């Protein structure tokens, strides 16, 4: 790749949970197209620190699209313009010289902003603690090959299990709904025989927790699937719905 680009950034700055935020504008020359989006922010932060200003806080960790930590709303899209790609895997070659990029934190009532672009997603953990597990103790389990699981079932469960819990589904949903996140876990464990014993309590508890956290309801717009970096299908939401119906009414 040759040449560098000049990028204008419009970044949400907010000093803590309780203060009011605002957008700040930065111009960044010398952005290489080979840089990742987060490396571009690193570059900006180096500049800011050298000028004695506070670096922009943003969540990130593995930078290879698996930990689910990064959480940027880039130009009106969760994780930016590409499908099936986390913000950390987005590269500046996707943008053009002279582009202006607006970066916002995930916006949802259950995801309060902690600082700048960092939000608190512990609501997801509380949903998991409510029922996102199979109640087995360490030890005393049967041999792994005791229960054969048809390959297509195992594959579909794996499709659901691929969720990285980044919250892009919530961020992209017009209702701030966590249905895709919850459904991925409910569906994975409903598909696998190991999860059957608790399927009823699981779906009830997880949905109740999800509602209590203040997430919105699902409107079947499927924005979540479109923005999910792991391309998790909304068919898992359908499965959650039928699990729920079965748990409550049968």
């Amino acid at each position, binding site marked *: 790749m040759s040449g560098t680009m000049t990028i204008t950034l*419009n970044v*949400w700055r907010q000093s803590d949970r309780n203060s009011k935020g605002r*957008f700040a504008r930065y111009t960044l020359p010398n952005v290489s197209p080979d840089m990742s989006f987060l490396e571009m922010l690193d570059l900006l932060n180096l500049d800011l620190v050298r000028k004695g200003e506070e670096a922009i806080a943003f969540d990130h960790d593995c930078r290879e699209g698996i930990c689910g930590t990064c959480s940027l*709303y880039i*130009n*009106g*899209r969760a994780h930016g*313009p590409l499908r099936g790609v986390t913000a950390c895997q987005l590269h500046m070659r996707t943008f053009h010289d002279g582009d202006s990029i*607006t970066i*916002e934190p995930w*916006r*949802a*009532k*259950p995801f309060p902003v902690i600082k700048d672009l960092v939000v608190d997603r512990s609501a997801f953990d509380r949903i998991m603690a409510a029922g996102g597990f199979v109640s087995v103790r360490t030890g005393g389990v049967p041999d792994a090959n005791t229960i054969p699981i048809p390959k297509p079932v195992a594959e579909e469960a794996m499709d659901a299990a691929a969720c990285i819990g980044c919250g892009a589904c919530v961020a*992209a949903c*017009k*209702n*701030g*709904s966590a*249905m895709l996140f919850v459904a991925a876990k409910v569906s994975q464990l409903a598909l696998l025989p190991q999860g059957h014993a608790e399927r009823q309590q699981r779906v*009830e508890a997880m*949905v*109740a927790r*999800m*509602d209590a956290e*203040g*997430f*919105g*309801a*699902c*409107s*079947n*717009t*499927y*924005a979540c699937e*479109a*923005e999910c970096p792991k391309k998790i299908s*909304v*068919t898992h*939401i*359908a*499965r*959650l*719905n*039928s*699990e*729920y*119906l079965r748990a*409550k*009414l049968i």
Partner: protein
Amino acid sequence: MNKIASFTTSSVGRKLLMGLTGFFLCSFLIVHLYLNLFLLKQDHGSTFDLYADFMATYPLIRPLEIVLFAGFLLHAFVGGWLWISNRLARPVRYAVNRPAENSSLSSRTAFWTGTFVLIFLVIHVNTFFVSSRFFPDGLSMHERVYEAFQSPLYVTFYLVALAFLAYHLKHGVQSAFQTFGLRHKKYETLIAAIAVLFWLIIPIAFAVLPLYFLLAH
């Protein structure tokens, strides 16, 4: 009972109520359209009026009418409730947002298309149902229809409302299947066909009537 209560207040339960009432209202659409099509019969409306009289006088229809109204009200009420709680889930909106990149307009506007359909229904019910049932003036239903659809303005309003209904159902029908968890690769074509019936064919069939009365007479 506790289970049912927590079901109807939960986000998933309310969506299921939306789907359930939605399907019920769709089934009413079929009956309504079936009867309406008798207006096209070239018998000066006698068959149509026969059915209209039957609907107005047969005792078993009354409770069904109430159920139907309750269905409408429940659908609208739960829809509004969901809309409000969904709005509350995002108190701070995005400064830049591009929903068109990830979802269809019909899915995002179901509340607004539904609201317009509701307004239409109030007017529609007032024109045909309230006047004939509560303030009878000797006009047959066929004559009422004929009169109402002489006004191009009224016909236009009807057509717009039907377009909204179509757009509402474009999202609503397949969405209800999803909400019921009825989604399987094997049945995808069937569901798509049912959706097309409701959002495309039925509204077009409804639209034929006002146009027929306006243009043919």
